């Protein structure tokens, strides 16, 4: 297995979930994931380990998401996505919870969506700061605020009471 194949197997599910968190659209998240790995493949030989490879990949993925702002109108959050059954293989309740999570994230600002998606992927705060380009302190404050916002939204929808 080549270096790229290993990277693709390891990171593509994570990148897809981050893109999905940002864009809240299944097809577009898949396209953004593919675009990310095309860029990874094209630049892998020139990657000089100035940062961790995961930082580099998530930078490409999230920058691709930010670039999509020029093309995409924000997905309405009130409506449930039509392709609900495709989101998860879990139970009906899990599907509803995942849709609610995506919809709550979609109500956040763009950078907040990126930060919370990376938090949910369990990336360390220092790495999130290196991806977004904020100081460690600023990132910590932002993460705290976003968690509070998300928690309030979830409670409003009758979850986690």
């Amino acid at each position, binding site marked *: 297995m080549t270096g790229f194949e290993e990277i693709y197997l390891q990171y593509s599910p994570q990148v897809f979930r981050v893109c999905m968190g940002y864009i809240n659209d299944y097809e577009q998240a898949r396209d953004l994931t593919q675009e990310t790995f095309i860029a990874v493949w094209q630049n892998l030989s020139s990657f000089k380990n100035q940062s961790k490879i995961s930082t580099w990949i998530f*930078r490409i993925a999230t920058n691709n998401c930010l670039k999509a702002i020029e093309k995409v109108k924000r997905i309405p959050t009130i409506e449930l996505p039509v392709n609900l059954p495709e989101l998860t293989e879990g139970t009906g309740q899990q599907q509803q919870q995942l849709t609610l999570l995506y919809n709550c994230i979609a109500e956040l600002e763009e*950078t*907040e969506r990126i930060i919370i998606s990376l938090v949910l992927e369990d990336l360390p705060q220092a790495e999130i700061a290196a991806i977004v380009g904020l100081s460690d302190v600023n990132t910590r404050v932002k993460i705290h605020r976003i968690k509070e916002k998300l928690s309030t939204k979830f409670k409003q929808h009758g979850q986690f009471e």
Partner: protein
Amino acid sequence: MDNLNDLKKIWLTAKTDCLPNTDEMVRTMKTYRNRKLLKKAVLTTIAVLLVAFLVVTAVYYTSTMVTTRVGEACMLVAAIILLSSNLNSLKRAYKLKNCTNKEFVEHLQSGQRGRIRFYKKTQFIAFVFISIGLLLYLYEMVYPNLVAGVIIYSVTIIWLLINWLVVRPKAFKRQTRKFNESMEKIEKLSKQF
């Protein structure tokens, strides 16, 4: 937040089997690279051939009037302005490989400003050179025949006027609206950092 772990559990239930497997991905990328390389090669070749054609004509066509030479020079300047501006934007796109979201948004902002400058200034200057160049270049060809001269100059001037007064303002208006919309979104993004 106490519920973060619950959210992580929900987050991880997302289905990811819609993604292509590694073989499909490698195949897609190879086709993508070939297609992209081909497109780039074709566009560069056309641009280089056009400039070469202009230069070769200027060298081999024995003109007796200075207007022809000045006309050729003007059109060559316009071609060089447009080509260098396109090469610069290509260079900018390739320069950005490993940057943070903040740097990327700054890059988007400066790119957008560059595009607005291109439409407002660079394209305008190039078009002035093309118009003047064309009018001067045609003079040697048509001056022995007054009727042909009037007809050819009328058609050329009408074509230039249509471009200056209809096509360009219309395209400019459309582009400006698009640029302003994008710029607004990017400004909003930039304020989040």
